[in-house]
């Protein structure tokens, strides 16, 4: 676009007159432009971030962060790469939490629903406090998930936790020392490996390939010269 064109230009107040806000990063006050993400605010403040960053896209859960807004006593949780800073906000990143992950051979389980109680004996002790749900930045009903896991409704759990980014923020808040995300991960894997239907079509295709059903076609395609191959590709609709 031509530079003298002023018609199709968005005035961004934050760029024209960047409003600086004061935030507190792990206890230290700094001034940063309003509205940038928590991660970018750290960069802006000159802080190198190595731990606490991964995908920068809201998927990996590396950037689990506790924060509080101005004059509000409530401590909330967020993904730092997906949250904008505002004046008076204070935050600190959550270090990896020492939760215990059970070790299992998923394919060798005999009775996955019963095994849950061996791997995570604390799971049935959920006291319904709902702290995990309140902590989840992905809006998952975590408490409900833990209950469903314990009652053997593995299918629902696997659906509910599809958007779990494994940030682990549900874990430190649990008064029964449950790591709900790890329970859900076990349950989801067990659901997939043991209770989901076997796709017949997939087995058929694997067998066809093994038995050489496509060999003639391959032979045909692979002996073509570039021109023939290009023409052949064009016929695939």
């Amino acid at each position, binding site marked *: 676009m031509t530079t003298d064109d002023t018609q199709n230009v968005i005035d*961004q107040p934050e760029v024209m007159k960047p409003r600086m806000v004061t935030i507190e990063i792990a206890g230290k006050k700094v001034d940063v432009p309003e*509205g940038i993400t928590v991660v*970018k605010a750290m960069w802006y403040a000159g802080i190198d971030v*190595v731990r606490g960053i991964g995908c920068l896209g809201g998927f990996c859960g590396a950037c689990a962060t506790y924060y509080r807004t101005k004059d509000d006593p409530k401590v909330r949780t967020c993904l730092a790469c997906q949250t904008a800073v505002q004046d008076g906000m204070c935050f600190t990143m959550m270090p990896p939490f020492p939760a215990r992950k059970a070790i299992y051979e*998923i394919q060798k389980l005999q009775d996955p629903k019963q095994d849950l109680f061996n791997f995570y004996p604390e799971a049935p002790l959920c006291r319904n406090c709902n702290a995990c749900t309140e902590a989840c930045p992905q809006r998952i009903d975590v408490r409900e998930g833990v209950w469903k896991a314990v009652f053997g409704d593995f299918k629902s759990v696997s659906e509910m936790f599809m958007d779990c980014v494994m940030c682990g923020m549900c874990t430190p808040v649990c008064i029964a020392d449950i790591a709900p995300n790890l329970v859900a991960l076990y349950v989801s894997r067990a659901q997939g490996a043991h209770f989901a239907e076997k796709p*017949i079509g*997939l087995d058929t295709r694997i067998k066809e*390939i093994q038995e050489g059903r496509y060999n003639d076609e391959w032979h045909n395609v692979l002996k073509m010269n570039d021109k023939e191959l290009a023409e052949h590709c064009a016929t695939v609709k």
Partner: protein
Amino acid sequence: MDIHALQQIVHKTRDARRKQTIPKFSPADRDQLIHKYHPDFRASAYRPIRFGPNEGEKTVVELATLLEGDSPIHDDLDLTPHHQTDVLIIGGGGAGCAAALHAHGAGAKTILATKLRLGDSNSVMAQGGMQVSVAPEDSPVTHFLDTLKGGHMENDHALLKVMVEEGPSIAKWLLELGVLFDRQADGNLHVKKGGGSSKPRLVTCSDYTGLEIMRVLKDEVLNQKIQLLEFAAAIELLSDDSGACTGAIFKDLDNQRHVVVAAKSVILATGGIGRLHIQGFPTSNHYGATGDGLCLSYRMGAKLAHIDTFQYHPSGAVYPEQLIGALVTEGIRSEGGQLVNAKGDRFVNELDTRDVVSSSIIRECEEGRGIRTMSGRVGVWLDTPILDAEHGAGTVEKHFPAMVLQFERFGIDISKDPVLIYPTLHYQNGGVKIDTNSETNVKNLFVAGEASGGLHGRNRLMGNSLLDLMVYGKRSGLTAAGRAGSMKQGKLTLKHLERFRAEAKQHGNVSGVISPMILPAYTRKVG
């Protein structure tokens, strides 16, 4: 002007546009458009590589500079190993985890080292799905031909044949590990149609395919107790007298110390290059996508393929500033989202291939029909509210919850307001040249996943990357493990570095940078 005032043109022209059909370009027009506007054809952004295995070949300036860069390692470094293993895997994304599980499963002692945490990668962000020819009307041969067409006929046939043939058994492996692919009512895998494919072939886990696969693979790596080195960035490889790869040197990002790992073979699975911001483009990639694997293998003498071509995803967010580069899923266009310029006109068939759509967006912006933001960015509108208008209120909210949430956090309701988009740097089409065992021309150096090159030709089809990772992750892991039993650990030397430095000196040490980059320099220098 206020963004809402500028958006009015989209609302005003919507009804007229709804009745319009835009034909796809003819092959000739398509070629012309791409040659004129696709970033791959911007000659000024390219230069020949001055020395090394790809001497004289052109690539983007940012990459050429890093490839010619110097190693951070002094040649007198003490190479006494801190760890000794059969198979060393560098990179903890999809390809790295698959390689580790297979190498370990085959009985080899395996170490997985990665720059950030296990799993922090591009793989975890994949939403669209993985291509596997499972539908009855589909076949591996059709998958092969579609991919070849998408790759401008330049794909390595042998690599591609292996990938499409092993696709179904890879899907089965993932299912057995507990990955929850979407199903049809009869229990068969549900498949969707992706851009450039003639048959529905994308297997998905809602729009969290990469996340679901990675959750499972990470958990499995932990269950198998595979030794992990996290926050360990590979900064140099090791070689013996014959030039074969014998291990790697890492920088521990927590304490900046060097860690030497002796290995019988090394699998590089370091992913792509988006964070180099080639030609100033924003990127959809993760924080560590700085092309490290290319620099490391190049210094060892490994040949690179197709490193002059990159994929620019048509729809990266341009506004608000916080979301720059973030992907606005292709799904929006598949469901009828229209691209609209500043005059309120459509200018391309939204479902054309990624390179065509990206080129046409760039054309609109360069010819003055874009919308500019005060921070110096430019884009065109993606009419998202049209989905509600077309398919009923609530469609956007229901089909794209992740995107709605992402924009809502910044006060934008995409079901009411169109979003501003521009192509974003998304994928490295080429990489280190490999054979069907995933091995490079350097003995015992394997490369798998996005860091490797040849398979996708000059343009990757949506969904083929996830399959590539799993197939070549597996092959590299199995081959490396198979070799371990019968071989001795090679000597740990920096001979390749001596040779590389001598060559660089001959060419005047022009680069002046240290590579690999490891992490992009976003931290503001304060004071």
